[in-house]
């Protein structure tokens, strides 16, 4: 049953990415060149709605959270390497899957590269773990944990601020 739910959620996710233009090279690079803010507005809206939705669920005890651990070196360096790959390929791991389904050969190349990259990481992990993953590791911490407050009280203003950014602040700065 969980497998089927996963499949259906995935179908909706893929449909949204395709319909919303997230598999488009000009959109992604336009965003990274700070010329076309479509993707930023899409992401800010999704995260704004998601933050409020998730912490509303959490408030009534229904959220199945999955918070990723912090290890400063690995997360920061991984983010930097990821960012370079993002700008070079024009895809991220999710959009290259959808782009491949559209029949885009460059997305298929990114997907194949991704499988190689994940394998290289599996081979490299014994070398990296001591330097980048074990040190400066603080576990699965959230901002509300750090502030010592209940999640909803940060989620509401943060979510509202992101929606404000997308709908009001960036509204006229489209091109």
């Amino acid at each position, binding site marked *: 049953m969980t*497998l089927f739910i*996963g499949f259906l*959620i995935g*179908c*909706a*996710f*893929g*449909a949204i990415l*395709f*319909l919303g*233009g997230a*598999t488009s*090279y*000009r*959109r992604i690079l336009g965003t990274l*060149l700070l010329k076309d803010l479509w993707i930023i507005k899409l992401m800010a*809206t*999704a*995260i*704004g709605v*998601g933050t409020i*939705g*998730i912490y509303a*669920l959490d408030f009534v005890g229904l*959220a*199945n*959270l*999955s*918070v*990723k651990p*912090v*290890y400063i070196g690995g*997360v*920061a*360096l*991984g*983010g*930097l390497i*990821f*960012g*370079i*790959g*993002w*700008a070079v*390929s024009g*895809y991220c*791991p*999710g959009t290259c*899957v959808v782009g491949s389904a*559209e029949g885009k050969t*460059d997305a298929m190349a*990114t997907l194949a*590269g*991704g499988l190689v*990259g*994940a394998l290289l*990481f599996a081979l490299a992990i014994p070398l990296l773990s001591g330097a980048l*993953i074990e040190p400066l590791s603080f576990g699965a911490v*959230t901002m509300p944990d750090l502030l010592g407050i209940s999640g909803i009280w*940060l989620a509401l203003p943060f979510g509202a601020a992101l929606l404000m950014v997308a709908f009001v602040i960036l509204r006229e700065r489209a091109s």
Partner: protein
Amino acid sequence: MQDKQAIISWKAAGIALGLLLTLATALVKPLGVSTQFVVSDAVVAHAVAEKFAEGNAYLANYGEANDWGVGYGWMLVFGMFVGGGACALVFRDKQPLADQGSLPELWVSVFGSSRLKRLTAAFAGGVLLLFGARLAGGCTSGHMISGISQLAASSFLFGVCAFGAAIITAHLLYRGRS
């Protein structure tokens, strides 16, 4: 660049994605993609070289010879392929021309129309994407969209580093063109 820019607006896509993330968190767990690249590698590795797969600390966590470890997360990514592909079939003629094809106009304007060059860059980018995502523990879905929505400290750090490096790289690639 404001008019009809995609099949649905960023507002519709963003709200739908936020609601889908909330639904996934209520039913199973938040969205994520990049782990499934490792799962897929582990499935193949277990099939073709079981000793190697079991001997690798990372691959051994995902899948076994008799149970591939294909679970909720993998089905989700498979669903993305099916759902995205089905929409592409149905709505192909509604997709803006500039968003179609494998050789984007912007790319051609600076790097020329060699398909091999574009595919090589896309492949190399893919290697970096997944190496980085696995080192950091997530990608745009798991870290940025799901992670920041959970207000995870780790995901804010990832988001800043990934966007920072991507913006700088994009400007370097297209320097001179502005």
